[in-house]
């Protein structure tokens, strides 16, 4: 017995309260439909419809079983859909951060085509890239890791208003680009004292990863800045507008700042930069292979820098440690 076909006949008859209309709807002959109902009644050991009157009605047993029959039909339908999309989906989704360079992503897509893979780029926040790999909705993704562990690093820096229209000191002098240090953001006293409140530093969703935020918060406190000075930006467009207007600084990578004509200087502390690995979704055997040609292409799309010399050093370390824990003056 083709159970699904028989259940379809049963559900259609219950909906239409008529054998002929149900047969029309299913596009089968009425005798075939009647036979299916009868077979099903024998199978379940009871009548599903009362045929004693002109208008057929559903029996108590028929009404009881109907929701279960519909459930089986729904699930079968979903099974067919999933099987259908899986068959069609030759596209491998790649999770990338917001504000990647479009031309570099295009190079990755073309390289995929040369290797016989259709890549689809999906711009997602960091947490969703990691969860997408885990639930299989992404084949590959750029995953945030601490910069000292990552396969590549993207320098983070501060974007500020172009020219001298406020928003902090110009980080570029004589064509030499200098790093910004968090201590530089302390309000100035004395002759250079600012008359207005110091501009807030806005952070993008890409950097709202708990481990990175903890690290940044600690560095901000150690540099003598109040905790409220760095805060999450709303949408990137408004954050950029505030930045270009000189009312805020934006913590971002260089391409985003350049693209919108903002000034940009890297943070001197490399341990605060972005670190990435390119990871693949684990296959049936549990291994997660990433094609070797994909890594440099995605790195360049994200704005990666060549790995510079020297690791992130922090702390002066020369102090008398116990004395710091004691009561002080």
């Amino acid at each position, binding site marked *: 017995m083709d159970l699904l076909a028989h259940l379809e006949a049963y559900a259609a008859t219950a909906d239409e309260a008529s054998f002929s209309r149900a047969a029309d709807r299913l596009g089968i002959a009425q005798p075939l439909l009647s036979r299916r109902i009868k077979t099903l009644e024998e199978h379940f050991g009871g009548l599903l419809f009362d045929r004693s009157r002109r208008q057929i009605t559903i029996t108590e047993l028929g009404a009881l079983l109907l929701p279960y029959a519909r459930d089986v039909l729904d699930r079968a339908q979903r099974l067919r859909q999933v099987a259908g999309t899986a068959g069609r989906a030759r596209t491998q989704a790649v999770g990338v951060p917001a504000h990647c360079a479009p031309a570099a992503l295009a190079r990755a897509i073309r390289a995929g085509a040369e290797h016989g893979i259709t890549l689809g780029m999906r711009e997602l926040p960091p947490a969703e890239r990691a969860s997408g790999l885990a639930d299989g909705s992404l084949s590959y993704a750029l995953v945030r890791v601490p910069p000292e562990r990552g396969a590549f690093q993207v320098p983070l820096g501060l974007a500020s208003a172009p020219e001298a229209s406020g928003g902090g000191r110009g980080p570029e002098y004589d064509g030499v680009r200098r790093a910004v240090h968090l201590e530089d953001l302390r309000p100035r006293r004395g002759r250079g004292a600012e008359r207005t409140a110091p501009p807030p530093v806005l952070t993008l969703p890409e950097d709202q990863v708990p481990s990175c935020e903890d690290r940044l918060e600690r560095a901000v406190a150690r540099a003598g800045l109040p905790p409220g000075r760095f805060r999450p930006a709303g949408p990137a467009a408004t954050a950029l507008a505030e930045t270009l207007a000189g009312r805020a600084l934006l913590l971002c990578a260089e391409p985003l700042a350049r693209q919108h004509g903002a000034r940009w200087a890297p943070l001197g502390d490399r341990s605060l930069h972005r670190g990435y690995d390119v990871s693949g979704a684990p296959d049936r055997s549990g291994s997660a292979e990433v094609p070797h040609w994909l890594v440099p292409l995605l790195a360049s799309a994200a704005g990666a820098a060549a790995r510079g010399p020297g690791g992130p050093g922090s702390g002066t370390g020369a102090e008398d440690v116990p*004395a710091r824990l004691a009561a*002080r003056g």
Partner: protein
Amino acid sequence: MSMAPVYVADDGALLDVAEAIVADWAALGVRGSFLARHLGTGEQLGFDVDELMPLASVVKVPLALVVLDRIASGELDPAHPVTVDPAQSSVGPTGLAAFRHPARVAVGDLLLMMLSVSDNAAADTLLDLVRVADVDERLRAWGCGEIRMRHRLNHMYECAAGAAGNDFSLALELALRDERAGRHTIETLDPAYANAGSAAALVELLRRVWCDEVSTPTATAELRRLMGLQVFTHRLAGELRADSLRWSGKTGTFLHLRHEIGVAEAESGDRVAMAALTRADRCAGLAPDVDLAIGAAGREAFEALRR
């Protein structure tokens, strides 16, 4: 914890100043209590003045008063020499606590070291001569309100190192976390177990010291002299520095606590006693903007209260 502050102010203008201080501190992530009182007019302004706080090194002021009282009564000789051996003395960044070789110092000079550079070893050496319990009993007998002496100064270091194993950042993080959770891993941060006091009780003590209404005039005069010799000027003193003003104070700093108490005296005769007891919600050893905000509060209060 984050309840609205309870203000103390004798008129609307003084209330404005108190409110501005709260807003200024809150912008930097600082909470605490503040009280400033004009010793002539009795006018005052402040907020949360009865909140109990661990005093950190501020407790050295009542300790000094008890020791000076013993000296005044002849029980202690200020010239009596004591040997301080670094191998056994208390931890600290200044004074005898930072010494590497044994030193013989007179009792009177231990007081100077304790108040001028906040010397923990000098304080604990004095507590060998006058027991902690005796100091506490004396303060109660004088009616010093909630000011309590419960432990030696080195106990703060021992508790912090016990909880965090000599890791300053970790101790600081524990302190901040505990402050949010409302229970204390580092016992000396719990007002119920620490050397504790309130801004109201400390300002009242300063008033009695400056008006010779506690202990004996020889003891209070010496305490005023010694408090005028403090070398730290980064906090309340910061904005009250002029040849025409005199600041006599004592700071207290431990992990996220930043305090100072003292009296500002002007040539015009105005004398304002004040106490600022703060906690910062920030994992930083140095926070010059917080120190500056405390200093700014002291100056605002002094200018609002002086006649």
